[in-house]
């Protein structure tokens, strides 16, 4: 489902005298259906960079990144948008939403953009918010004022609203208490059972051991390791 081959990444810093930073070389990764792969490595090793390359946020300098039939490195913006709408979900560490929009609408939005009827989308959103223990009194409020853990759970509900065939998870269990951590791990296990391919970053070792089938140390993709 997700297949990276020979991916490299450089940053050219034009405002620092055109310095070129090579941060990744020769990254290969294959994630078949129903498998969850954990990216590991020290902070700054390039875990998030690799996730952003898969999501199309970062432009790869070379190589191919296939998600389903789409090569993210060569696809036109509208093809990537369609991919993100239908196929590839991303739960980032930060919630980025239009201010003033209610939590229920924030979670239902991915479904609405797929053309799901408003009632059905809101029912699904409500079910997820309930499951993740967000008090119903908060559903009508914008999540911008919520606590860190609540925002994280809203973000997760949004990421799981549509059953994407491929998912990227950036620290989904960080800043969660034991009960909610359990709910999130359950959601991940359900997604795997459906055949979802998952790439994740988990600093929580117990969580990683429980849901991940393999670990990939991204330090192996650094230019020094490849040289």
């Amino acid at each position, binding site marked *: 489902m997700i297949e990276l081959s020979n991916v490299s990444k450089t*940053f*050219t*810093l*034009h*405002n620092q005298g055109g310095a070129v930073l090579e941060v990744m070389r020769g990254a290969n990764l294959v994630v078949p259906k129903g498998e969850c792969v954990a990216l590991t490595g020290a902070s700054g090793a390039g875990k998030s960079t690799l996730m*952003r390359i898969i999501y*199309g*946020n*970062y*432009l790869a300098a070379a190589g191919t990144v296939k998600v389903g039939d789409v090569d993210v490195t060569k696809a036109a*913006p*509208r093809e*990537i*948008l369609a991919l993100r709408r239908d196929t590839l979900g991303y739960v980032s560490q930060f919630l*980025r939403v*239009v*201010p*003033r*929009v209610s939590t229920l609408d924030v979670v239902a939005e991915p479904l*609405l*953009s797929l053309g799901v009827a408003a009632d059905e989308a809101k029912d699904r959103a409500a079910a997820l918010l309930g499951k993740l223990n967000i008090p119903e009194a908060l559903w009508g409020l914008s999540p911008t004022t919520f606590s860190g853990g609540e925002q994280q759970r809203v973000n997760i509900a949004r990421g799981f609203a549509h059953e994407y065939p491929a998912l990227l998870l950036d620290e989904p269990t960080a800043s969660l208490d034991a009960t909610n951590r359990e709910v999130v791990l359950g959601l991940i296990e359900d997604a795997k059972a459906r055949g979802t391919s998952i790439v994740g970053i988990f600093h929580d070792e117990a969580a990683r051991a429980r849901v991940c089938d393999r670990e990939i140390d991204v330090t192996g993709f650094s230019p020094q390791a490849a040289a």
Partner: protein
Amino acid sequence: MTPLLSVKDVAKHYGNHIGCTDVSFDLYPGEVMGIVGESGSGKSTLLNCLAGHLPSDKGEVIFDTRVDGPKDTLKMSEPERRMLGRTDWAFVHQHARDGLRMGVSAGGNVGERLMAVGARNYADIRSEAVTWLDRVEISEDRVDDRPTTFSGGMQQRLQIARNLVTGPRLVFMDEPTGGLDVSVQARLLDLLRGLVRDLGLSAIIVTHDLAVVRLLADRLMVMKSGRVVETGLTDQVLDDPQHSYTQLLVSSVLQV
């Protein structure tokens, strides 16, 4: 899929000075494209050339018309282009006063566009106007008031209602949230996003506000000195800018 708008090599000079040059892109149905750049970068000149408000020096602006399919709007006759401007195209000005008739009631402002495309039944026009005012969160009891009695944010929302009532397929927006306070901006952003999604509109939005494009635009075009220096998916251009000017622009934003 046929692009809704296909722009080829559009240029506009003011004497020896470049307004904009070498601009080409395709916009597909349902896409929202942002154009960013500092003031004087040519983004408003480009928008006005595309919308036919300014004559271009050269190039083609091909629009996929409902009846005749793709047609170069720069070669259209004036009546034909005016008709397009009243039906399939809409233009939201930065200053609502430029897009509204200040001496006419709010309902009249919305109804006028309907009448321009042939609506004649007063009751229908009025009820359609009220529906649209409600959509942009202007209450029904203000329908007979003139826009001069409205706040800036309300005027902007009224302008949007006036523009969208005829069901356009392409909306040009020039700094639609500029000059509004932040709470009103947020409301307007939410409104615009909902309308784009529900009506399947395509839009070209000129702004200097990167936060606005991140939330509204699918794609981004960065302009400097009249030229396009970078294009791409909005979050990719903002998170991994390639051109030196874009890097400077992104790193110059104040964090709140």
